[in-house]
């Protein structure tokens, strides 16, 4: 499977492969011809990925083959032991949690998990959590605090699941509680948006000291499709909505919502999962090293003030009808 804008690249790659095979079969030296095509391929890739539209990045963020939470858990961490259940309602497969080592340091891992094929996608509910998933995450926050272990949260969800049971079991309550619980963590917390950062369902595990995002990942208040359906009553206007929502990694960096953007290999994470995961692993190690000297009080203070600052607004001159008694922090 390929994304539409990837076609010219894939066509060229296929042409190079054919030429190489042909040369070998016929015993003809096509080295220079192939070299020309390869350099053309390289610039085509560079050009295409340097100028991806927001909507194209949305597609890369959702691309099949893009590494999922569990891929990172297995590639970046050592000795992962999955811990199940929320001790209350169930064990949500859309969130994988457990203990592992990262560069010799024990950490608590929380990973939103989409499926890597249709069957797993159904099992994982396409990465959309029920309340038990967030309760499981909160249990991990408790465990992390008790044993002084840093938290690594990998964000990749279209959003919290909108269903009857989810609402009955307090989807809103549990997302709010998870935001609050995570803001109170007395240990270092790093979140990485590795794919889709879908609304409150993503933020629930995104209240970290440092929030990282992959170059082609997105983080948004609403999906482009839903946004389009509301604004123009037409989900096919998703491309327009994606542009309007400014949901790419670079946009979010400009808005100071994320602290650091991690480059993906040219062609996107799904074309080179190993390199992408190495990149994320290195960044996590750096971030945890940097946070390690901070004590609990400082970690909580830093995290609170990080999120307290977010937003853009204008301070007005006092209006006649208003008490001008506001203050800046």
């Amino acid at each position, binding site marked *: 499977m390929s994304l539409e804008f990837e076609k010219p690249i894939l066509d060229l790659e296929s042409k190079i492969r054919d030429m190489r095979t042909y040369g070998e079969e016929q015993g003809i030296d096509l080295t220079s011809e192939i070299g020309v095509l390869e350099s053309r391929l390289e610039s085509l890739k560079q050009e295409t990925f340097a100028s991806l539209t927001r909507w194209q990045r949305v597609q890369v963020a959702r691309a099949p083959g893009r590494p999922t939470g569990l891929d990172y858990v297995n590639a970046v961490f050592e000795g992962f032991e999955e811990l199940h259940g929320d001790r209350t309602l169930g064990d949500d497969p859309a969130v994988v949690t457990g203990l592992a080592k990262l560069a010799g340091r024990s950490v608590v891992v929380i990973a939103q998990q989409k499926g890597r094929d249709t069957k797993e996608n159904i099992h994982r509910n396409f990465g959309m959590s029920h309340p038990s998933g967030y309760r499981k995450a909160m249990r991990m926050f408790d465990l992390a605090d008790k044993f002084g272990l840093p938290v690594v949260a990998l964000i990749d969800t279209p959003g919290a699941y909108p269903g*009857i049971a989810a609402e009955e079991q307090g989807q809103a309550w549990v997302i709010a509680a998870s935001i609050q619980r995570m803001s*109170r963590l007395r240990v270092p917390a790093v979140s990485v948006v590795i794919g889709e950062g879908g609304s*409150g369902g993503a933020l629930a595990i995104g209240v970290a000291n440092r929030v990282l995002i992959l170059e082609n990942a997105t983080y948004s*208040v609403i999906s482009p499709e839903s946004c389009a359906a509301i604004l123009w009553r037409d989900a096919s206007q998703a491309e327009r909505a994606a542009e*309007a929502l400014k949901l790419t990694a670079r946009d979010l960096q400009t808005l100071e919502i994320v602290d650091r953007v991690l480059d993906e290999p040219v062609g996107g994470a799904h074309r080179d999962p190993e390199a992408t995961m190495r990149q994320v692993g290195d960044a996590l190690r750096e971030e945890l090293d940097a946070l390690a000297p901070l004590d609990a009080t400082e970690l909580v203070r830093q995290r609170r003030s990080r999120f307290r600052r977010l937003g853009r607004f204008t301070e007005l001159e006092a209006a006649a009808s208003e008490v*001008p008694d506001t203050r800046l922090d």
Partner: protein
Amino acid sequence: MALERWFRRGRPTRVDDDATPAGLWMKCSACNVQIYRKDLVSNLHVCPECGHHYRMPVDERIASLMDEGTFDRWSGALAPEDPLEFVDTEAYPDRMARVQGKQGRPDAIVTGEGRMHGEPVAMFVMDFFFAGGSMGSVVGEEIARAAERAADRGLPLVGLAASGGARMQEGALSLMQMAKTTTALESLNDLGLPYISVLTDPTTGGVTASFATLGDLVVAEPKALICFAGPRVIQQTIKQELPEGFQRAEFLLKKGMLDDVIERKDLKRKLVRYIRLLLDRPIELEREDAHVAGV
């Protein structure tokens, strides 16, 4: 997603719109009885026939809860920007200018302090008639400042939520207000000051999934719609009928999500009682008048 209803309709149904000429008769949308509009307003926008709770304008809400002449407004000096240069059917600044003009405030919230039966409290009230009470940077900042100022002054905080959720036009900045308001509430928590949240019709999306459900006590008005995902979104997802009363206050009370469902006429008395009990202050012994409108 929860904003959907609001934007689809363009404007909410404003049966209690101040523009409706006073003194006219109207048909109650709940019981179909013809009621005199003045009676509805003087009854706190509750149908005198069937008790249906209509959405309440912010200023009347404040008047119904605060002792007369005690409310000191904090909010109003912050106005929205247009960080995304967002244009849908209308540019975001134009949309805001229009709504600001109509509602007479820069964004969908009023905060301040006052007294309830003599008890000093801080309060925020969301304005659903202002862009569906949607939460952007200004709403988030005003709530955060109200929480922090309440903490500075040693006041309990009462919040009245009414919102379609996070405001799309400010993108992920709106989403981040969920975390911002939550962290600002910590300043009250640090001091052991109560924050009581009142969910009114409707409270949805990112507002429900942040400060609105983080009260030490969380109560709701009768039949208020309270949800994360709106009923339409759920119905589209699951292609199935929703249960009777689903996502309404009484349903959520049964599901364990609310401390209580409180009729509007009892709200002031109950809130004062909660605050006094939580802060170990003397509770009033005299019977209070059940009707507190304009007090």
